[in-house]
């Protein structure tokens, strides 16, 4: 997977967290996930289709997910309920939709978001394409954006 496909997701994530929610992010070095199922407890998933194929997964700990959605809605959630799960889906939807602006090589459509929780879920990543994980630290805990996107020929 080309490095240039990763940058639009980094830009979209930083814009969402820093510009919109006022949460400073510190980005780590992107790396290929040796185990693509090794994600945190709450993950929002979007499928990418069209002229390429792929997926993007935004992953948080339970506590961070609750705090992020609370910040987004300017309220206080204390548990991983339906509202927080809905909010995580919206966050990954914004990251994927915004990243399209800079993925100019191809036309890509995004799926509706799905959210999985727990410690033993399986993500059905596209086969044969590496998953690149971009780790971030924030004042409300760690998160990662994980991207798998087929190269254009």
């Amino acid at each position, binding site marked *: 997977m080309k490095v240039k496909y990763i940058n639009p997701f980094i830009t979209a994530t930083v*814009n*969402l967290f820093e*510009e*919109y*929610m006022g949460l400073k992010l510190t980005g780590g070095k992107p790396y290929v996930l040796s185990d693509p199922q090794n994600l945190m407890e709450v993950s929002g998933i979007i499928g990418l289709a069209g002229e390429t194929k792929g997926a993007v997964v935004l992953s948080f700990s339970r506590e961070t997910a609750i705090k992020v*959605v609370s910040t*987004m*809605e*300017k309220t206080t959630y204390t548990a991983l309920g*339906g*509202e927080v799960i*809905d*909010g995580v*889906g*919206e966050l990954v*939807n*914004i*990251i*994927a*939709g*915004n*990243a*399209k*602006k800079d*993925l100019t090589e191809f*036309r*890509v459509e*995004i*799926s*509706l978001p799905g959210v999985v929780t727990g410690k033993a879920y399986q993500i059905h990543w596209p086969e044969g394409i590496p998953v690149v994980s971009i780790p971030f630290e924030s004042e409300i805990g760690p998160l990662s954006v994980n991207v798998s996107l087929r190269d254009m020929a």
Partner: protein
Amino acid sequence: MSFAVDIWSERKSMKVLIIDDSGVMRRIHANTLKEHGVDAGDLREAEDGTVALDIAERDDIDLFLVDWNMPKLDGLGLVKKLRAKPEYAETPIIMVTSEAAKYNVVEAVKAGVTNYIIKPVRGDNLWQKIGKYFE
């Protein structure tokens, strides 16, 4: 005798339909409108395009805020259906979506949206773009 001034007294009464499959996002938009003096009783919400069409049949909606990606009937399909109805041919339809690609904007404009706002959008920025409809 009261000298209290209702700063919202000039605000035009508009029925607004907020269409988004995310309840969080519907509440964020609704709170923005209420913070700017829009009466909660004038707000309607729908979680997809089909529910929105039902509401638009029953109620005279003055302004639509439409998400793009939704189940059943997406925002683009909804805009086309609304524009095909004579009663909504001229009504402001604002698309508020994460879809930031140029081809999406072009497609939405062709379908008949009045304005296109890319999420995430802060409340003040949203109001800057839609406040004029309430004047």
